[in-house]
């Protein structure tokens, strides 16, 4: 299947500062792509170029068959963006914001009202639909911003930090609605610096740092790409015999084995799920009784740290 979004050497400079640096990335139709990176990574600038709000300095993006540098009006018809900062004027109410947005997007009156009602009820903001924006909480304003796109249901839906300031229940609701939108055939781009959000929603994650694309792959494969990223902790009834560590090191996916305590070993390995049967088999063969086994996999923060040498918090601070 041809990609619905194709970024080719996409670059944006503001004076001497390069916000997005030669981005080459393709997004398949119907997938959820997470754009992960700290603040200042270039996610929002990339989104603004996809939405034809900013013109690329170099390179281009193809939205469907349309080159945004040449056919911006046509490209824009396929895209809807829920911005990081809610774009509301203070005199607006959620209802008027959504009604106007839907009207500009060409939704007929009956359908418009039906969709707005459904989205407002689903997001739990039906009761405040006629209140002006300045009296709404940050989380509610964010929901209204997300609601615009859920009402519009564009072919390509872009969400920039869709659940920032939203409570846990609201987060899960929004995630569910984004998945539904994808299931209906929309392609989703999710820009976030929230690792868990990227992990649970995205089929692929593109990690950006300082305007560059570092890596793009499925979350599982990104985690597996860290050598020794999985950790298996085995606790024994008694002490840990010397030969166990030697034998464990012989298992192909094991990278390192260390004795954490007198009766415990920590095994650093790749693809723990494949190695676990072999570890169990080894312990059985050696006649050792394990008291407990605990498996932990790397987080996306570990993935980010692996590719940048920084945790996402450190990168944020810089």
């Amino acid at each position, binding site marked *: 299947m041809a990609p619905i979004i194709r970024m080719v050497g996409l670059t944006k400079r503001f004076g001497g500062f390069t916000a997005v640096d030669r981005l080459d990335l393709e997004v398949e139709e119907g997938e959820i792509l997470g754009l992960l990176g700290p603040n200042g990574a270039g996610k929002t600038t990339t989104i*603004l170029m996809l*939405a*034809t*709000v*900013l*013109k690329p300095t170099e390179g281009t993006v193809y939205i469907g068959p349309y080159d945004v540098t040449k056919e*911006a*009006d046509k490209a*824009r*018809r396929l*895209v*809807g*963006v829920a*911005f990081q*900062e809610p*774009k*509301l*004027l203070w*005199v607006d109410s959620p209802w*008027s914001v959504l009604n*106007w*947005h839907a*009207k*500009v*997007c*060409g939704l007929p009156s009956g359908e418009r009202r039906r969709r707005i009602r459904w989205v407002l009820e689903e997001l739990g903001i039906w009761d405040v639909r006629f209140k002006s924006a300045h009296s709404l909480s940050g989380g509610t304003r964010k929901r209204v911003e997300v609601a615009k796109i859920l009402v519009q249901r*564009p072919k390509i839906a872009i969400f920039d930090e869709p659940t920032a300031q939203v409570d846990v229940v609201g987060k899960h609701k929004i995630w569910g609605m984004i998945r539904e939108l994808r299931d209906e055939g929309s392609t989703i781009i999710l820009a976030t610096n929230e690792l868990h959000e990227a992990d649970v929603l995205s089929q692929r994650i593109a990690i950006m740092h300082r305007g560059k694309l570092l890596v793009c792959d499925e979350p599982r494969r990104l985690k597996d790409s860290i050598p020794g990223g999985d950790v298996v902790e085995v606790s024994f009834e008694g002490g840990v015999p010397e030969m166990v560590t030697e034998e464990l090191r012989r298992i192909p996916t094991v990278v390192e084995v260390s004795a954490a305590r007198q009766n415990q070993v920590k095994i650093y390995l790749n693809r723990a799920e494949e190695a676990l049967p072999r570890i169990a088999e080894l312990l059985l063969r050696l006649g050792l009784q394990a008291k407990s086994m605990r498996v932990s996999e790397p987080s996306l923060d570990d993935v980010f740290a692996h590719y940048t040498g920084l945790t996402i918090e450190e990168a944020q601070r810089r």
Partner: protein
Amino acid sequence: MRALLAVVERDFRYFLRYRWWIAGMVSMNLADLFIMALVYARMTNPDVVVDYFVFFAPGLTVTAAFAAAFMIGREVNMELRREVTHYMLSLPIERWKLAAGRVISGGIRGVAYVAPLLATTLAITNAYTGRLPTPPELLTVLAVLSSLCLGTSGLSIALALSTKSFEKYVTARSVVYYALFFCSTVFYPLSLVERVFPPLAIPARLNPVSCGADLSRALLLGWAEPTPFMLVDVLLYALVFGLLAASSYARTTRK
């Protein structure tokens, strides 16, 4: 076309939200007319202006139309500062339609604002001259005021999109206000400008605000013959600044 109408409707809806403020502004305009102009009427030399009160009434209508149409710029500048412009530019609507919608809504705001003042002016000029404009004359006055409002709306949008700084915008707005009103025939006739400030006579003659005011006076009071130049000048003003606003919207995407 539906999207363009939606843009117009939104801006006009925002305008109506300020209805009490608008009512206050109209009252102040009327106070200008009934206090200031009446006082000035007793102070001015009748050889220069026969009756300043009647002279000023059509000028005030033009001033008010200009000020009301300029309001759209304040909102566009606020949108620029709050990055609501990003949202507007991301909408599935052609840029020219977005720009045209905003310019037209600014124009409609001006016309709506000026309606009570125009009615007052008609009452005053009727009381003074005993005549009412014919329907074509009235339509011409409305067309001139509408064109002036459209041009002003375009000018204010172009100005608003030129800077993110509110201070710079307000300063530029004041400069435009003072330049256009000072070098105009809104407050004093062209003959006075030619006599007292000769270098300003040509700008005052070309100024669309002057043309709007003089054309209104000609048609409502019958004090002078309306000239095609006045109409063309105001129409050109609307066209040039309408296009400037559209190109300013297009330019914001190239930053």
